[in-house]
C-alpha cells in the first residue's frame, strides 16, 4: 500500500527568459518500507521533487498525498504540524543546532511534538545508540565528525516517529568510511524497523544500497527500477 502518492507534480520557476520546469508532471508512489534513491544529474529536479514531497516547497501544480492527506491543501500551520509528525528530514549539511548536544538535538523534535520527558529521554538514548553514538550523547556538533553529525541528524529525523524519511544528498559531505557507516545504519533501520527512506543522491554507494532507483532528468522521471 502506498504511503505517498505523487500525482502530476510540477514545479515551474520563473527563469530570466523562459520558465524553468524543475519538476515536470511527475507521477510516483512510494510504499511503506521502501529504500529509494532518487538520482539524476545536478539540476534534474531531485531536490525540488523531495522538497515538494516533504511539504517544504509548494508545487506549481499536482498533488502530494500522504496517508490520504493532500498535504498542499493544508494551511501553513497545519502543514508545519504535519511535517513535524509525519516526515523526517536529513539534510546534506547535517543542520544540527550547534548550541545543543547530540541528545538535545534529537530530543528537541520530540519536545516540539509535546512528548513526555521520560519518553523523550528513553527514545533519544535508544536512537543515538542505534546510530552508534550512545557514548556521545552530551557532545556538541562541533565535537563530532561529519559522519557522526549526520548520524545524529538521522536519529533526529527518526525521533518524531515519522512515516518516512527524506534525505537530501545525505552522504555528499562525508568520506567513504562515514558514508558506509551511515548507509549501513539506515539500511538496518529500514530492514529491521521497516522505516521508509527516500534519498536524493548522485552517490554510487547510495545507489548500490538502494532497492529502488528513480532516475530524474529535466524534471521528469526517466526510469523507475526496483532491485
Amino acid at each position, binding site marked *: 500500500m502506498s504511503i505517498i502518492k505523487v500525482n502530476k507534480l510540477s514545479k515551474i520557476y520563473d527563469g530570466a527568459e523562459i520558465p524553468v520546469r524543475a519538476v515536470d508532471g511527475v507521477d510516483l508512489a512510494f510504499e511503506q518500507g521502501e529504500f529509494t534513491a532518487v538520482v539524476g544529474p545536478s539540476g534534474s529536479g531531485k531536490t525540488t521533487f523531495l522538497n515538494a514531497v516533504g511539504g517544504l516547497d509548494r508545487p506549481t501544480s499536482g498533488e502530494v498525498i500522504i496517508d490520504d492527506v493532500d498535504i498542499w491543501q493544508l494551511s501553513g500551520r497545519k502543514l*508545519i504540524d504535519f511535517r513535524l509528525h509525519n516526515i523526517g528530514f536529513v539534510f546534506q549539511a547535517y543542520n544540527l543546532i550547534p548550541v545543543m548536544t547530540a541528545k538535545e538535538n534529537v530530543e528537541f523534535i520530540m519536545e516540539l511534538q509535546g512528548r513526555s520527558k521520560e519518553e523523550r529521554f528513553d527514545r533519544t538514548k535508544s536512537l543515538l545508540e542505534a546510530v552508534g553514538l550512545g557514548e556521545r550523547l552530551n557532545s556538541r556538533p562541533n565535537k563530532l565528525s561529519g559522519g557522526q553529525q549526520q548520524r545524529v541528524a538521522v536519529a533526529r529525523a527518526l525521533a518524531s516517529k515519522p512515516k518516512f524519511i527524506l534525505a537530501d544528498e545525505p552522504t555528499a559531505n562525508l568520506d567513504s568510511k562515514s558514508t558506509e557507516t551511515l548507509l549501513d545504519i539506515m539500511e538496518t533501520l529500514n530492514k529491521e524497523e521497516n522505516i521508509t527512506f527516500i534519498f536524493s543522491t548522485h552517490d554510487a554507494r547510495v545507489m548500490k544500497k538502494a532497492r529502488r532507483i528513480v532516475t530524474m532528468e529535466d524534471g521528469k522521471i526517466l526510469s523507475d527500477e526496483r532491485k
Partner: protein
Amino acid sequence: MIVSLAWRNVWRSKLRSAVIILATILGICAGIFSAAFYKGMTDSRIEKAIMNELSHVQIHNPEFINSNEIHDYISNADELKRKISLLPSVAGVSNRYVIYSMVSSAETGAGVKILGIDPEAEKQTTRLYTQLLEGDYFKEKRKNQVLIGHKLADKLKVKLNSKVVITLLDVDNNITYGAFRVVGIYKTANSGFDESNIFVRKSDLSKLINLPPDVCHEIAVLAQKNDEVEGIKSKIEEIVPNLKVMSWLELSPEVRYMAEAMDLMMYIFIGIILLALLFGIVNTMLMVVLERTKEIGMLMAVGMNKQKIFLMILLETVFLSLTGGVIGVALGALISKHFETTPIDLSSWMEGLSGMGFDTLIYTSVEWPILINVTIMVLITGVISALYPAYKALQNDPSEALRTE
C-alpha cells in the same frame, strides 16, 4: 527547551553579544545613577523647603491667604496650638505673625516677609536655628533682635549688630516702625528665601502692631514623618473647620511640580537611552537572523511552527536586553547607594543651585520603583526590538533558507 536554546543562542557570538550587553549596562547604569542623582536633589530641595521654610502643614485665616492683611488673623491661637500639639504624629507646632513690609538699613531698603516667632517653638518646626552663618539664634533678655538672610544682609549692606528699621502698618492701618539689631545672619540652600524673609520675636512685633493677645497669622505644624502629613491635616481640619489648613504640597506646589517634572524628565532620559539601545539590539538581532537563515529554515522544515520561532527570537532578544539591563540596574543602584551616604560636592555651581533652592551637596536617592520600572522598560525594549528581526525570520521560506550557505 526553547528558553534554554534562546539563552544559549545569546552566547553564540560572545563578542557581539558582549558589546551590546556592555552598551546596555553603561546606558542603564548611567540612567539609574542620573535618576538617583536628580531624585536626591529633589528630595533634598523638598526636605529643605519643609524644614527651613514651610513645615509640613500651615493653618491660616482663609482671608489671609489672599489678602495677607495684618487683621486677617487666627484667634484663640494658643489653645489651638495646644490642641494640635496633642495630636499623634505631630512633632512641633509654632504660632507666627506674618507681615509683608519694608526693612531699611542706613544704605537702602527692601520689601520682606517678617515672621514674628516664638524662638523656642520655632525650633520644633523649622531648622532655622541650625542655618546661622554668623551670630546667634536670638539672645536672652535683649529686645528687638532680628535674624536676616545673608543675601538680604548683602543687599542692605548690614553686618552682625547693625541696626535695621522695620516699617509696617499696625492693626489700625497706622504706619509704625521699630529699630531692630541684627543678631544672626542665616543661610539656607534657597537664596531667594534668604533674601526675602526676616525673623523677629513675636513679642517684639506684637508691641509695634497692636494685635490683640492670643492671635497669630500662621500656625506651622511639623509631622514626625512625611507620610503622616495628610493624616495630620485631616485631623487639624476637624479641630479648625473654619480655618484654611494646607499641606506643604499645597503651600508650595512648585516644589511638587518640580519633583514630578524631574521624575518625568528622568523617564524621558532613560527612554532616550533605551531608544538608542533599541536600534543597536535590532541591528544585532537582524545580523543574528541573517546568519542563522539556514538553521531557521531547518527548524521550520522539521516542524517548528512560526509561533515558536517567534518566541525563540523574542526570548533571545529579551535575554540579550535584560542581561545588560539587569546588570546595569544593579550597578547603577550600587553606585547610587554609595553616594547616598557620600555626598557629591557641587559647590562649584553653588550660585546657580542655591538660586533654585538646591543644596550643593547632593546625596543620591535610589528607590525600588525606579529600579523596577527601568527593568520593565528594558524588558519592553527587548520585546519591541525583537519584533522586526522575528518578522524577518518568519519571512524565511524553509526550502530557500535551507539552500543558503
